[in-house]
């Protein structure tokens, strides 16, 4: 016998957040949250196995609940709950809360009055409702206390601040048909874009966003910052969809081009490097160097081989990721410098730290030389001025992504020719070509690369796309 809940179809819509779904389920069934938890929450062992980054009562994690059972009890398709949790949209990793979503309740007042709340509002970077375009409410207007994103003991349709008791919002009772005037199917497009961004970021650490997204950027943001910030990118997605929903003139022009955007950062240290200030960049490198040498001092007996050194370096908690290595390598590569030379541009009064940097650069350079053979650019027409900090970083990550995939393919016995064929067909439009040749003795990978496509400025929209020619 399949037991059911009172589930007024008019009151529930697709892409609602788990918080609102469960709140409505409690309210419409005259239940306390304990009853819902008892019926639908998974056992603690299952929960921990599923997603260890969430606390037990964190409603951002839909994996804590048996959504299939909930859909059966509600006699609806489980696809209704496809966006119930943040974990269904963005990749779940460590530092999840810090970089991807807010822990407290964020909502759009008009949406809530229509009985709608989406998980999308919880994503960091999303600052406006994709449908209404209004600012999201994050805290009590009276006392500025944030609202916890948990299910109340006895959920009600009125949101009240626990600190000052004032009413912050009202969940619309939409049980009667026709009580919702907004078309929330428009929300699907925004969510689809966000999911595309996040899914691609989960799988490849890089996403190619194909839509109307040419320059100019919104005022107040440096060009270099725009593609860097996944959070801000989510904001743009919502703004774009809000413009479309409200039929306003698009802020981002009308020509559709591809924009390559790197994955949002996972550490605060990376955030510093996004600034174009050279001093900050140098500071970041110094920090890398200090970390590197501290690791090397403590674990020198394990660092006899370069591979071990690399692994130890990467596995340090809070240490440097593989992207950082690749970043340094690729920056040196594109600027036609050795890594040591790249680090050697510090000021004289910080000689000791710059010595660290130079030594680190030498180590990295040596390590890179042992793994990759960087062939020189043959045409010599490479213009460093055209490389912005943004696409340099993006293409660097793309390279790393390709390297990971190629390395995996090589380990699984795929021949280099087959790899080239597969990658050539996959990235003919959006990525630089990459040729890898494997030598058995000594084990060496030859990396051949093509120039980075140009960043097309708005006044040069009619110029041909970046040339893609073999350079080696």
């Amino acid at each position, binding site marked *: *016998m*399949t*037991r*059911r*809940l*009172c*589930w*007024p*179809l008019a009151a529930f819509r697709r892409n609602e957040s788990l918080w609102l779904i469960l709140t409505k389920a409690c309210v*419409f*069934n*005259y*239940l*306390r949250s304990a*009853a819902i938890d008892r*019926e639908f929450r998974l056992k603690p062992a299952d929960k921990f196995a599923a997603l260890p980054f969430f606390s037990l009562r964190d409603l951002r994690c839909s994996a804590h609940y048996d959504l299939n059972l909930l859909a059966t*009890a509600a*006699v609806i398709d489980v696809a209704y709950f496809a966006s119930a949790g943040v974990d269904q949209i963005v990749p779940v990793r460590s530092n999840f809360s810090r970089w991807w979503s807010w822990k407290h309740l964020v909502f759009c007042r008009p949406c809530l009055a229509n009985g709608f709340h989406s998980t999308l509002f919880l994503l960091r970077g999303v600052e406006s409702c994709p449908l209404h375009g209004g600012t999201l409410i994050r805290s009590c207007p009276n006392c500025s206390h944030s609202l916890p994103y948990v299910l109340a003991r006895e959920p009600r349709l009125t949101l009240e601040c626990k600190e000052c008791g004032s009413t912050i919002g009202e969940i619309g009772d939409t049980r009667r048909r026709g009580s919702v005037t907004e078309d929330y199917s428009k929300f699907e497009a925004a969510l689809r874009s966000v999911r595309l961004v996040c899914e691609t970021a989960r799988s490849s650490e890089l996403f190619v966003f194909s839509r109307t997204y040419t320059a100019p950027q919104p005022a107040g943001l440096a060009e270099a910052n725009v593609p860097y910030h996944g959070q801000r990118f989510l904001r743009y997605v919502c703004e774009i969809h809000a413009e479309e929903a409200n039929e306003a003139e698009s802020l981002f022009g009308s020509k559709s081009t591809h924009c390559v955007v790197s994955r949002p950062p996972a550490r605060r240290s990376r955030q510093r490097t996004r600034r174009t200030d050279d001093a900050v960049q140098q500071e970041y490198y110094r920090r890398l160097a200090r970390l590197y040498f501290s690791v090397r001092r403590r674990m020198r007996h394990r660092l006899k081989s370069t591979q071990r050194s690399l692994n130890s370096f990467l596995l340090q908690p809070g240490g440097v990721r593989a992207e950082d290595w690749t970043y340094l390598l690729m920056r040196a590569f594109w600027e036609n410098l050795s890594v040591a030379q790249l680090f050697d541009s510090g000021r004289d009064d910080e000689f000791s730290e710059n010595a660290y940097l130079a030594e680190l650069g030498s180590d990295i350079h040596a390590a890179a030389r042992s793994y990759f053979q960087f062939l020189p650019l043959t045409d010599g027409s490479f213009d460093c001025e055209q490389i912005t900090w943004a696409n340099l970083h993006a293409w660097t990550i793309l390279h790393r992504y390709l390297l990971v995939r190629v390395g995996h393919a090589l380990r699984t016995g795929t021949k280099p020719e087959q790899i080239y064929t597969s990658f050539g067909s996959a990235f003919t439009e959006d990525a630089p070509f990459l040729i890898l040749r494997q030598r058995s003795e000594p084990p060496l990978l030859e990396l051949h690369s093509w120039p980075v496509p140009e960043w097309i400025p708005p006044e040069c929209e009619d110029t041909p796309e970046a040339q893609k020619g073999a350079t080696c």
Partner: protein
Amino acid sequence: MLAELSVMILRWMRRNATGNIIRAHQRYGKTTAIRHTVDILRSAYPGILVYSPICRSTLRPSEKAFFERLLFWTENMTPCDGTAAKMRDRLSDFLIQEAERSGQNKIVFCFDEAQKLWEAQYDWMIDVHNELRNAQIDVTVFLFGQNELVDQRTRYRARSKDHIYGRFMREEFEMKGLCNVKEMEHCLTSYDDPEVTCYPRGSGWCYTRYYFPEAYALGWRLQQLAGQIWTAYEEVRAANGDALPHVEVSMESFFSVVGSIFIDIGDRKESSPRISADELASMVVESGYGSAPPADPGIEPIEDEEPTA
């Protein structure tokens, strides 16, 4: 009997009756009739919500227990949670939503053992009825119970409890057993027809063919025993004196006798099964018809021991 009941049920439904009584003696097949009623209603009104709660004996009526049972039988996910008032609200809202989804604006309750319902429970049922009527949903309550229901109806009428009498007990239908040999023959024919009763399930065989394969192949049918079985019932009735005014066979007794024929006589593997009158009388008595079954002659009665001084 079920055909007559079906006609009556559908007539009541067409008239949008709020509730009526279907009564019978014990073991006459009321619970089976409920299942039949559910099938009939679902075929006549596709998607209609039909619930068949079983009433429990209680020392006194409890609002919470009543609505908990109703929520349970209406397949609510959380029947036991909340106060009685919340249970009422939950039940009403739940039934309204279920009715909206079903595409029918009717809900039918078939209360089994309805003679156990208290007056207060009828009042609560009236509340549910009124709330659903407010949402344009018709509620029909069929009270399946023993003949005691008629006495209750008389009492409610005498005490001017018209809201109960007029709403749930206006008309009645009495389910009778097998009253003549023709009805018994009709029932036995079902065992001979593989389209009506198939055993084993999906085999395309009828019960008679399964238990009497040789006799069935030679053209023997169970319905031929109808007269003999009926005579056995009459003999048992005569042996019991005038306790029973006329022969009326309850369905449980009848099924028991037929089962005994299949198992006991079927084991003989005869090409033309013969059953003696004594055997049939024994089966009838064992089926619970008339008096208590006689003591098993194979077991000696235990002598009572005298209490020691």
